[in-house]
């Protein structure tokens, strides 16, 4: 593994010697990765290499999907989230996640954004209104939906739906936001909007994004990690990775010679 890790770097999430097995198949192999705060980290690699699994390892979503086993640590602010006493629901409020295909609930736009807040026990109509409005404003959806807050969210366009689920996640004011190929199901205009959004979000949140689009990784991220077959091949500042990759594999992948 070749990683050019800056020595004096702040850490939001630290993945330490982390391995993951789905049933008997090893999906991740001794991953060492540091996610700096208020930066965008991109995970790239050929499909099936374990990018999504690594992302889900950071909010413990893997265990919901499949029978899995893991080894090593994922530290959020220095706390291992795989400790038995971790409150998983609380963890997922701190580490929000957005999926590849927009998955709004078939409720109103308002209820979608307020869903997480209500789970937290927020009952005050005024505070809910405020936070829904602020989340929708952050994703730039407010002006488009303010007149139909109480319409079914599934009547929005796919691009709007994807920004809505991002708003739904950030309404909880998470510390880390995990985005799994958030633009892969969108048209170019919506993609552009989501990319701009990601760029703005890093002022407030730590963002980790999975993408299979090299240009996108280059455009939005500050750090890039390249995975292949469950191993972390290279991790460096995005600029470095795209101009002078240390590993031949990385270079081949970026230039499109494999993957």
């Amino acid at each position, binding site marked *: 593994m070749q990683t050019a890790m800056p020595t004096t770097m702040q850490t939001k999430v630290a993945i330490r010697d982390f391995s993951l097995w789905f049933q008997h198949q090893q999906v991740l192999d001794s991953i060492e990765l540091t996610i700096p705060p208020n930066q965008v980290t991109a995970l790239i690699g050929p499909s099936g290499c374990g990018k999504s699994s690594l992302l889900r390892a950071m909010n413990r979503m893997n265990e919901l999907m499949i029978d899995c086993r893991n080894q090593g640590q994922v530290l959020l602010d220095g706390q291992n989230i795989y400790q038995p006493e971790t409150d998983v629901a609380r963890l997922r409020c701190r580490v929000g996640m957005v999926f590849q295909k927009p998955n709004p609930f*078939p409720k109103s736009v308002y209820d979608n954004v307020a869903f*997480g807040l209500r789970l937290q026990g927020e009952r005050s109509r005024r505070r809910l209104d405020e936070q829904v409005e602020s989340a929708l404003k952050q994703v730039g959806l407010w002006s488009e939906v303010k007149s139909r807050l109480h319409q079914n969210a599934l009547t929005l366009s796919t691009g709007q739906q994807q920004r809505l689920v991002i708003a739904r996640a950030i309404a909880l004011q998470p510390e880390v936001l995990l985005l799994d190929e958030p633009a892969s199901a969108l048209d170019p205009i919506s993609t552009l909007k989501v990319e701009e959004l990601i760029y703005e979000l890093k002022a407030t949140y730590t963002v980790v994004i999975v993408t299979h689009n090299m240009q996108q990784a280059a455009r939005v991220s500050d750090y890039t990690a390249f995975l292949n077959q469950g191993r972390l091949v290279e991790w460096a500042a995005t600029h470095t990775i795209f101009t002078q990759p240390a590993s031949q594999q990385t270079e081949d992948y970026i230039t499109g010679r494999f993957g």
Partner: protein
Amino acid sequence: MRQWWQQGSPWVWLSASALLLCLGLFMALLGLIAVKGMQHFWPAPLVQFQLSEQGKPQLGRLVRQISDRSEAATNRLWLLDRGDGLSKENAESPASSGRYLLLEAQQLLPERPSNAVLVQLHDGRTLYGTMLDAAEVWQSQEQAETGLWLELASQRPVLLPAEDIRAYWLPNQLSLWQRGVVFCQEWRHFLTAAPSQNQSAGGIFPAIFGTLVMVLLMAVLVTPFGILAAIYLHEYAPKNWLTQLIRTSVYNLAGIPSVVMGIFGLAFFVYVLGGSLDRLFYADQLPAPTFGTPGLFWAALTLALLTLPVVIVATEEGLSRLPQAQRLGSFALGATQAETIWKVVVPQAAPAMLTGLILAIARAAGEVAPLMLVGVVKSAPQLPVDMQFPFIHLERKFMHLGYHLYDVGFQSPDAEVAMSLVYAIGLVLLTLILLLNLSAFLLRQRLRRKYRLID
């Protein structure tokens, strides 16, 4: 031709004709029941007949034609209804004393007297006779009572007191409109009155009511159990062979014959559960059983058990159709599994649950066999719900449309003739099931619209 064959057109035609055949049979069934059931209350004309050349003409109602093949030549006979007006003393011969007669065509007289009257008495009897002009008779009698002067079969005129008469009409001189009015009145009576001692007369209200209460109680019992069981099976249970085994067994429960369920209901619910309830709470009334005898609650419980697999299967179907992304989306927002199930999964699977309920109601409302063992009776003195505390009497026996139909059509002495009544009861039962299903269906549509998923 070959091309026609190769393009797969035969399959289109084959499947379309199969559908057409199904639809045709279905329409025929509905049509038959509707027409025959309606006919029962349509005022038919009364005819006159003579038993012998010198005999006095009598009045009756033609039921239907029967062809008698016992002799060399096929003989057309008429089945005729003489009403309940006969009494023993005036019977001309034992053979002709019954209410129903077989007549040969020449015994029927062509004229239909316009003063022939049909009288329905409150006790359920129907009389056919000749209405006499009141003024004529009054000359010889005192005008003490009000009522209807009637000449029956071969009797002297009798005065029927007004308070005994439920309704009467002159079938041979009714206009179409008047027939319609009589038709509606008789239907109303049929739907709202209790049966008379003679099962095949009077109304069927207690049976309608009993069926309705039993089905609703069954729905109240089966819905929570079925839904919770399905939620456990699909959302909580680990996905291993044991769960699969349980699931398969539950699905196969649907194949248990309903009579067997009835036996189980009698043996376990009535005798074991009911017996223990009696010993615990109604010890002072023993040995007279309160719950240790067939009754409404046990019937509803037995049917709930019978329809449980239907609800479980339909609910699980709905749960598995819900995209996993919906659940993950909820978990990712910090929801626990319980919150995810109640706030995301159940609302979206609700239409499927209602589908299960619809199927359960359809199945339960038509079941008769198990009910005969666990609570349905020929005639129940009291309704299961009334104004007396505790208002709903779960231990009471009750009447049921399906059983009533069976009883009237196949157990009563007039079975042959009660066929049109059987159709009428069948029509009511069918309508009741349709109405129950329709209301669940409308509820489901509303939920569907609320949780519309666009792909």
